[in-house]
């Protein structure tokens, strides 16, 4: 059934195409075509078309490279944020954190920031020197403040009656107010990283 309809349809289409072609050819018989080629114009058109393709190709390649680098930096930013979130969770939960984890936090964060810095410095056409220097200086300042808040226990000459930080069972324990200050400083780093993430996709 289907093949019968298909056959009838095909014949009808063939007849229609044949009729149209015949009509077009009869019209073309009356048209005179003068073929004049200006070599200079042809070359100009050719070069223009080639340039358009070339520029598009270069731009596509450049923006693809920029996007890949932005993704690479975003990956590093996420890794720093993971450390910050882990630290925040631990402190929020019990106002305490393991000594090894706290002592190593500054180094871990700054090593990751150094990776980001290296990539940003290589992309000097997108991120100028002062942008990178300012990011690193702010980052190091915040991590240094966090380290002091998290790991600076009082010494023998400054021992307080109610210290807001102490070490018990290989853990730093903080008062509520000290925990709040630590979390506040961790937010400052998050905010700095958010701005960096915004910049890498917009610059």
């Amino acid at each position, binding site marked *: 059934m289907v093949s019968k309809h298909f056959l009838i349809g095909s014949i009808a289409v063939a007849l229609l195409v044949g009729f149209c072609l015949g009509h077009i050819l009869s019209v073309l018989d009356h048209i005179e075509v003068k073929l004049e080629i200006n070599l200079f114009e042809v070359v100009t058109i050719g070069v223009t078309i080639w340039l358009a393709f070339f520029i598009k190709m270069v731009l596509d390649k450049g923006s693809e490279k920029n996007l890949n680098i932005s993704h690479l930096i975003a990956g590093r930013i996420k890794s720093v944020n993971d450390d910050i979130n882990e630290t925040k969770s631990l402190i929020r939960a019990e106002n305490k954190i393991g000594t090894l984890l706290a*002592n190593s936090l500054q180094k871990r964060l700054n090593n990751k920031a150094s990776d980001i810095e290296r990539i940003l410095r290589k992309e000097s056409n997108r991120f100028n020197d002062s942008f990178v220097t300012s990011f690193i200086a702010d980052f190091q300042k915040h991590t240094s403040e966090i380290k002091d808040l998290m790991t600076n226990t009082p010494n023998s000459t400054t021992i307080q009656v109610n210290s807001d930080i102490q070490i018990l069972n290989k853990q730093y324990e903080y008062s509520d107010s000290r925990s709040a200050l630590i979390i506040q400083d961790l937010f400052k780093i998050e905010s700095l990283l958010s701005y960096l993430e915004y910049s890498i996709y917009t610059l």
Partner: protein
Amino acid sequence: MTALHIMKKILKISKIFSRTPGPRYIREGDYSGELFRNSLLAPAIEQAIKDNDIVKIDLDGTAGYGTSFLEESFGGLIRENQLNYNSIVKHVEFVSDEESYLSEDILQYLGDANERLTK
């Protein structure tokens, strides 16, 4: 002024003490700043001052330092071991490629301890 000898003793903390430096005081846990100062740092610096040498302190290779470990190790040299600030600074050099800010931090701890002593 006497020229310093070229011989430099190197204290690489991660090798001769611990890769995971701990708290401030011995009573607070393992690998404390107090232990490091008493057993290694103070004797090395006292010897360097005596011999007019330099002690190179290599801070690289550890998991990281807490503020109280470093403060107790270095600030304690002035506070507990009664060493002179200028002598310490003259006879100590720092290596810290992994955390370049540490040498500045340590000089700050030494300066603060010296300031408190002279008040």
